[in-house]
């Protein structure tokens, strides 16, 4: 049975490879039967920015972004994130702390990076 899965990414992709790896995992889970949502907190929102040059493993990131877009993987960002810095082609919404907390509480599985 499909599970509701959240992949929460909160680390800075300029400082560690783990945010890009987390996005790869999210893509892999999305390609299966699970309903996968990616939550980007803090500097992790840079994963969807126009300029990814300073992101570790940006070449790998650029390979995965088209598939995430094509699969319409939902992204949730914090309401304090500037929407103008986020690529428009992605399915992104902006939620408050409370709404993000409620979303995570409703998940069957949560992976936090």
């Amino acid at each position, binding site marked *: 049975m499909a599970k509701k899965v959240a992949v929460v990414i909160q680390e800075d992709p300029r400082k560690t490879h783990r945010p890009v790896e987390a996005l790869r995992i999210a893509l*892999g889970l999305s390609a299966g039967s699970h309903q996968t949502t990616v939550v980007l907190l803090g500097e992790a929102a840079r994963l969807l920015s126009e300029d990814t040059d300073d992101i570790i493993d940006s070449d790998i990131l650029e390979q995965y972004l088209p598939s995430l877009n094509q699969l319409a993987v939902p992204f949730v960002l914090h309401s304090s994130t500037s929407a103008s810095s986020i690529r428009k082609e992605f399915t992104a919404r902006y939620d408050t702390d409370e709404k993000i907390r409620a979303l995570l509480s409703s998940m069957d599985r949560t992976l936090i990076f």
Partner: protein
Amino acid sequence: MKRKVGILLALPPSHASASTALGLAQAALDARHEVYLYLIDEGVKNLHNPPYAALPEAGAKVFACAYGCHQHHVSTQHINPHISLCGLVVLSGILDACEPFLSFT
């Protein structure tokens, strides 16, 4: 009641969670539960850690991300043949089938 316990580990041997995940796996096996352990990202660096390498003989089903081994230059030549190198489809199955599922990422 026998349960399927899923454990995901994405952290290297130097991280405290690597010991915690191992202890949980061993405790679950001792309690006669089925254990499904998936090593991903830097978690694959535990492959050559003897207590992890011994888990299949204790009854655990152990899987390691082939991509992670390549990315982190972890040799797969001399790993326990009962450890499966695989992709994310296996993790997807573990997420689906196991309850509880414990994530150490």
